[in-house]
């Protein structure tokens, strides 16, 4: 088993109101110098065959019309 992380985020150029809300909230808490905040999704999975993950993303985990995805292999499977 290989532990895989799939990061899904709004495609560039698509307005991301959730990211904007977070970006506006941070200075209010005293954190300055923050820009380009985007909120996406993290999908963690254990798979026998990591080479299948991009196809899983194309078909289900992301909607590639509005989202982009990145597959990251992580350390060890979760017990």
């Amino acid at each position, binding site marked *: 088993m290989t532990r895989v992380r799939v990061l899904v985020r709004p495609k560039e150029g698509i307005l991301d109101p959730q990211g904007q809300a977070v970006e506006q909230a941070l200075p209010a808490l005293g954190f300055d110098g923050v820009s380009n905040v985007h909120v996406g*999704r993290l999908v963690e999975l254990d798979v026998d065959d990591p080479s299948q993950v991009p196809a899983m993303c194309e078909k*289900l985990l992301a909607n590639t019309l*509005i989202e982009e995805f990145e597959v990251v292999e992580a350390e060890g499977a979760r017990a």
Partner: protein
Amino acid sequence: MTTFGVIRFPGSCDEVDALQAARRVGDAKLLWHKDRDLGGVDAVVVPGGFSYGDYLRVGAIARFSPVMESVTEFARSGGLVLGICNGFQVLCEAGLLPGALLPNLGRRFICRQLGIEVVSDRTPWTSACEPDEVLSIPIKHTSGRYYVPEEQLADLNVVFRYAHDGNPNGSTNDIAGVANAEGNVVGLMPHPEHAVDALTGSADGLKLFESAVRERVAV
């Protein structure tokens, strides 16, 4: 008599209103999400709600349900399919309609009666409307911002627009509903099934169901 099939997914919540709306102009029956058999219905309504909890993305899981396989086949062979709100989102995810629905720009759930302009009366779901007619129909959604890549806009079959500059959610070009190129599949965010009696404010939504019946008679 025209028979409408209304799908019930786990998490649907507007299927009973859709059934009752359809029964004002024809016959209607429920289709369960595990059914592969559409039972010979003349038209399919994919209703609003939160199919499969809207987990992952709105409409993302529902599109893989057994009933949607049959609906896809039905749509591809010219069958009449109407997607309302979550149903619209499901049809986009299924690739039966172009585009996708994103979270409202204002980030909030919106529930409001709005003017909806009929851009095209040349679909089987709008043939009983007048061109440019404005229907009074409610919306109630959190993810209703219609998006389609700019290069697809020119060929897009727009059916409904938010009228009077009343774009509530940031949809591209005020789009409230679209059809596929053939016109037999229509999706919209507003809820015509909630506007079928003057007692609750408007009966304009019935026109979509009447259109489908008229289409059936014409065939």
